[in-house]
């Protein structure tokens, strides 16, 4: 299976982030069209498309921690022209934040309004249980109907999860589904139930402990695109339980093709990308919290609430 890669040419760069949304959309138009081209024929007759970005929290898109709404808007514009399909962008309210709030702060509504694309909170939509095969068991996953009844295209950003694995398209789908299994198995089950058409990896800005303007887009089957993402972040495919099972015997056969005909040098990109982790989960670095508690015990001082580890 091939993964198609295109770079985003940013002439006269001023910093790593282009603030003006119109300019970002203009810069993205050609590479987005190029990476979607291989799917133009196969999806020309679909009437309903759901784009699923990584919009889990309002971290600024220049951090690489979320999918750039301009990338999603650009994909929607190209697909509209190619298919005439009814397109929606979906996410789900979770325990952390309401989807409309996160997407709103990220600027999704203002981008999507230009293309008459709806923003849909899947937490408010109907869902059904699907039984799928995951390693060593049959798993029932609760999936929003929309993701079962429309052509799903996942648009993850290139970043690690809290646990250190690549976030990727499979885990992005996993966050929208529910099961009694752990997050990894749920993600695997979600992908098998939803059967996404393909993924578009938004590596225009990537995060690997630090953000970097990677100016890269990649399309392909969701597991293969996730594998490319993991490789770019220097993560082992073998030690990632989701990728290991999602790829199965296909892993060695991933080929990378340039979507534009230009040379694609993922090795050079991999060297540029930092391979770090997310910051520690507490407000304070755990080593500092530990040191403070030790200090407070010795000195009889109070521990500030900001330096207490979360309970």
């Amino acid at each position, binding site marked *: 299976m091939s993964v198609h890669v295109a770079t985003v040419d940013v002439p006269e760069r001023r910093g790593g982030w282009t603030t003006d949304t119109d300019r970002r959309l203009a810069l993205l138009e050609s590479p987005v069209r190029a990476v979607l081209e291989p799917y133009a024929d196969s999806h020309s007759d679909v009437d309903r498309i759901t784009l699923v970005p990584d919009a889990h929290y309002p971290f*600024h898109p220049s951090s690489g921690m979320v999918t750039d709404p301009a990338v999603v808007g650009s994909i929607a514009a190209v697909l509209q022209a190619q298919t005439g399909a009814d397109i929606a962008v979906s996410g789900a309210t979770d325990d952390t934040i309401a989807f409309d709030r996160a997407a*709103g702060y990220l600027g999704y509504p203002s981008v999507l309004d230009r293309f008459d694309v709806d923003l849909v909170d899947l937490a408010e939509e109907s869902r059904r249980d699907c039984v799928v095969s995951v390693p060593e068991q049959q798993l029932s996953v609760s999936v929003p109907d929309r993701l079962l009844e429309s052509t799903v295209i996942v648009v993850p950003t290139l970043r690690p999860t809290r646990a250190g694995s690549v976030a990727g398209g499979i885990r992005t789908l996993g966050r929208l589904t529910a099961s009694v299994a752990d997050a990894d198995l749920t993600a695997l089950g979600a992908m098998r139930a939803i059967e996404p058409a393909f993924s578009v990896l938004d590596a225009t800005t990537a995060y690997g402990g630090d953000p970097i303007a990677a100016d890269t887009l990649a399309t392909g089957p969701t597991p293969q695109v996730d594998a490319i993402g993991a490789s770019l972040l220097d993560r082992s495919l073998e030690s990632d339980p989701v990728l290991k099972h999602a790829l199965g015997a296909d892993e060695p056969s991933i080929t990378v093709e340039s979507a534009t005909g230009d040379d694609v040098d993922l090795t050079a990109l991999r060297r540029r990308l930092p391979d770090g982790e*997310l910051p520690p989960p507490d407000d304070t670095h755990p080593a500092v919290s530990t*040191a403070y508690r030790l*200090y407070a015990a*010795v000195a009889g*001082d109070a521990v500030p609430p*900001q330096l207490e580890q979360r309970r």
Partner: protein
Amino acid sequence: MPSTLLGRWADSNALSLGVLGVGNIGMVHLKSALAMPDVDVVAAADALPANRDRAERAGVARTYDDYTTLLEAEDLDVAVVALPPFLHADAVECAADAGVDVFVEKPLARSTDEADELLETAREANIAVGVDHTLRYQPDMAGVKDDYDDGAVGHVPYASITRLNDHPLGRPPADDAPPEWPLDPDAAGGGSLIELGVHCFDVLEWLFGDLEVRDATMGQSLDIPAEDAATVLLQAPETGTAITLHCGTYQWEQLPEVNTRLRLEGITGTISNQDHLPENFYASAATSALSNVASRLTGSGPDVFGPTFYLQAHYDALADFCTAVREGETPPVDGADGRRTLELAETAYELAEAAESDTLEVPEVMT
């Protein structure tokens, strides 16, 4: 200070103190007060059960889910108002009804109009109002002032101050929903200029005297209702100093590191707050530990929040307020100071809005 306040606490052994709102900063005040000699923390109030539980674990005797109930039920001398800004005026009014002096978290109010009403209420009730503007209590800022007042770099034609953090959205990983009110200008009084800029205004007037706001611009990195960046050009006529102030709530922060920079560019060199900071957290913690153990042996007062100078500043600010109340003096940072920071912020907002709405005039082209 009204004469009726003089001697009010002369026969009292300890100030009876309650904390209204025990979120993060309210808990800092609560823990500070619990560590103070001659202060008896009798109660705390918060609408959130988790915050009340945390206050009880910290050692407060009684908690309430409503600050008005606390003020009615308890016999307080001092109330710390650490509620969201939209509740400050109401809380002060309730405290005034009960004759309780108030130490109010910044901003004092959401506007100068609201501050005026709040201060009039306090004046009529004859209660003291202090405001938690803490930068001037930080050792790095005090070091800058000492150097400046010593004439260490001669005349200072230019100064700059920057204060950045990530309130309220935070940094990854995302664990908690950000509160709504800090992003709502109607509830908070504004964005980062009200959240952080007011602290900067306060410390700048402490250093340079009265300021004049000359220009300002606001920025938004995300599609949020309030600004998350503010840049203000100021002039200090008394010292002949031009000043730029930049504050923002867009930058990820990991405690104990804080991004507060103050630089005074003088004729013979630069005074920087960075030169007055503890070199690193661990060394500072070790020093404070030794100091506190020595304090135990000598019976003198220990440091509170010793290794975290910016939290120690909150302790010192509240301690100074309590001392002023006890001695019948005007609080060192009082309601007028709090109102003044709001006045400067409002001028900055007006100038930024005027600049934003100005249409560019197309110059006539001579052919």
